[in-house]
């Protein structure tokens, strides 16, 4: 068992809107934000729904320097990070925001500036002189770097791009850095945008549902893509206490493991996922039987949800796994890819704070082959202060898990 980190600030940009508030409200209302989108022209694509972030609120440009030059993913990231840092009581960001504290940024992304990169690429023609900014910002590390620049961070800045597990892995790196004394404050999170390459790519794999995704349901038919960003401010629990900051939740442990099985299909028995969960539990000093709720990866593809269920059944025992209230956040906002784990950690914090697991929209029967206690309809209250497990299974077989604990614990 190793030290826990306090989550003292939370920021989010999601298909529910700009801010952790709309995100929390949307989740707890069991709303679905996957539907019509216009991030790019999708007329010729096989499917036509996604979770798109609404237009930015007025006034953001005034609050952040160089806003207009930021890519969309950078804007999502900077807005989420600024909200988190302000919420943690460090002020509104900028170079004085974290003064005196050694801070690092641990970020995640699959798409980075790809939306603008695609537009740059499409505009390339021999006779034209393209604006190169779009190509430089294509770097997957750009959103995390933009956060570091905006906040005046001088400690380590790292971006993980391990597909769908990236955000969860980034939180794990943040936890390590805090425990090791490399940083005093960690801003952990991620950002992704809807773009053509991922939308066409997942469609070429026939993995995208024409409808908003329906994780763990018997009639599930694929994933929905989403976009947005999340940022969590983490500090060593004792430091948060010492400065009088109120933790919103605690990050007690993280674990990761690979399937080493196939480039797209998960291990059929969820082997890597089960080991990632075991590692997270061990890291948190929490036994499987103590877990009170779950935030699943739950993409809604037939294979993923089945592999995930099998991993859960292996770790918790089938009987207990059937009872653990499970949140399928992707049903609400879609799959953000790299940053999904970060946004889902934010969802987990929301659930722990409110003492209830958020529902998925859409109703319908749970698949008897994946008999998870998927919360539907209304939030399911949590009795007591049990730890929560958040899990992500990535494309390419990378798996990662987190154990979060209510602040009241």
């Amino acid at each position, binding site marked *: 068992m190793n030290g826990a980190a306090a989550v003292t600030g939370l920021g989010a940009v999601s298909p529910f809107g700009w801010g952790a508030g709309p995100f929390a409200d949307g989740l707890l209302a069991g709303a679905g934000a996957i539907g019509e989108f216009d991030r790019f022209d999708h007329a010729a694509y096989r499917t036509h729904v996604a979770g798109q972030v609404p237009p930015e609120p007025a006034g953001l440009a005034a609050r952040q320097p160089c806003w207009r030059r930021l890519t969309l993913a950078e804007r999502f990231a900077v807005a989420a990070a600024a909200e988190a840092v302000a919420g943690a009581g460090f002020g509104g960001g900028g170079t004085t925001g974290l003064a005196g504290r050694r801070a690092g940024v641990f970020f995640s992304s699959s798409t980075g500036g790809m939306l603008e990169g695609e537009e740059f690429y499409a505009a390339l023609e021999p006779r034209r002189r393209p604006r190169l900014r779009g190509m430089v910002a294509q770097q997957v590390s750009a959103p995390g770097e933009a956060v570091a620049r905006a906040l005046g961070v001088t400690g380590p800045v790292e971006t993980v791009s*391990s597909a769908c597990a990236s955000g969860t892995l980034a939180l794990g790196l943040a936890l390590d850095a805090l425990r090791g*004394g490399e940083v005093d404050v960690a801003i952990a999170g991620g950002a992704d945008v809807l773009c053509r390459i991922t939308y066409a790519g997942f469609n070429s794999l026939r993995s995208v549902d024409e409808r908003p995704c329906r994780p763990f349901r018997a009639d599930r038919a694929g994933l929905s893509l989403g976009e947005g960003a999340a940022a969590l401010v983490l500090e060593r629990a004792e430091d948060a206490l010492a400065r009088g900051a109120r933790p919103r939740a605690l990050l007690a442990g993280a674990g990761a493991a690979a399937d080493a099985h196939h480039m797209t299909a998960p291990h059929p028995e969820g082997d890597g996922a089960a080991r990632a969960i075991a590692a997270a539990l061990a890291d948190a000093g929490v036994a499987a039987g103590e877990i009170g709720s779950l935030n699943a990866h739950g993409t809604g593809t037939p294979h993923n949800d089945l592999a995930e269920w099998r991993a859960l059944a292996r770790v918790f025992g089938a009987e207990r796994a059937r009872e653990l209230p499970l949140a399928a956040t992707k049903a609400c906002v879609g799959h953000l890819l790299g940053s999904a784990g970060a946004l889902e950690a934010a969802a987990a914090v929301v659930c722990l704070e409110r003492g209830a697991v958020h529902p998925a929209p859409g109703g319908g029967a749970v698949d008897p082959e994946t008999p998870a206690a998927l919360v539907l309809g209304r939030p399911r209250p949590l009795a007591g202060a049990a730890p929560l497990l958040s899990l992500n299974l990535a494309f390419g077989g990378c798996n990662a898990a987190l154990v979060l604990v209510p602040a009241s614990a």
Partner: protein
Amino acid sequence: MNQVVVTGLGAVTAFGAGAEPLAGALARGATRLSPVEPSRRLPRPTGGATSAVRVGDLPLGEWLAPLVARRMSPPSRWAVAAAKMALADAGLSVPDRPGEPDPATAVALATSFGPMSYTQRLLDQILDEGPEAASPSLFTECVANAPAAQVAIQCRAAGRNHTICQREAGALTALARGAADVASGRAARALAGAAEEVTPLVFAILDRFRALARPHRRSSDRVGEAGPAPGATAAAGRGGSRGAAPPAPTEAARPFDRRRDGFTVADGAAVLVLEPAAAAAARGARVLARVRAWGGAFDPTAGRAGWGTGAAGLAVELQGVLGRAGLAPDDIDLVVSGASGAVAGDRLEAAVLRRLWAGAPLPPVLVPKAVTGEYAGGFLAAAVLAAAGRPFGAAPGFARSDDALAVAPHDGSPLPPPRRLLVTSLAAGGSAAWVILEAP
């Protein structure tokens, strides 16, 4: 916490397969440049660079069967081959499929651009033929974590798996990630490294940004061997605008030189095997280096596309990395600098080093990127070779020190075997990563 050692090194570079061809090039102080085809989409040369340190068509059949490699992007192929070479170099058997994967072997790989040739081909399909022409194989392999996922599958490595994207600081960050996994006991072994491919388009864009080294004015500046690597086929110039003959290598990067004008870009991969020192000793493994400490930092004065002016802050951070390891600059007897020939990058690097040594003379400074180029892990491999006591020749092309920098690369004269090395990397965009290696 375990002490971490490097017991194996594998590399796929312009110099050939394995660490030895690279070691030879570093000892001779000779780079190897090959012409880069004009980009179909951005064909007008504007910066003037024409060559890169490229792997070319190196046969990899010894490490990759064709039916296994058929869907792999170039960085994945190179990363898998380098990982297998590294395991063999470490005296560890490369597991055969379909044996059980090892849950205690971790993977940490860095890439800056990811498998760009596959990304570009996929974009071409989507934009030119329509989204339903998108190839699922190209998509699967164009993601940044494809090389790390393939290494996990092909080397049966089922432990923690991280892909780090942190530009020029990525390779050392990945090394640090692997070392941390082994130090903490969460992995019994880690495969850590970097993989990169350079497409004509990426090359052309870097050149448009004037980031790349250009042909030197004086053709008498001999800086290496002409032409492609052994086993490589020369990429014939297409379109006639660059001619058919490979250029004399008069455009090698010149780190810290007054006339430096950019870096040379490299493709390929390098992978290290990291283990606990005790485990390596128990099995009688040959140790190349010890990984003593690591850390990273950020310079928020850097813009998105370049280097900043935050040398003072970076030096303080680097001092902190040393301090947390119980070390002082006095304890370093060799610097393996990530200086690449980038005008502003080298300036910042020199400023950080001078501040760290605070007026005292610097130890000898090696600049392997003059031979290895930037990206693709060659620098990482060179750092390990330096720690292992291998000789380094003079940096090719270095002729005039830049008085404003007051740092010059070592002149190639024989050095005593180093005991403790500071390995540095400063990335465009502001990231920094440092590793302290020790002799075995």
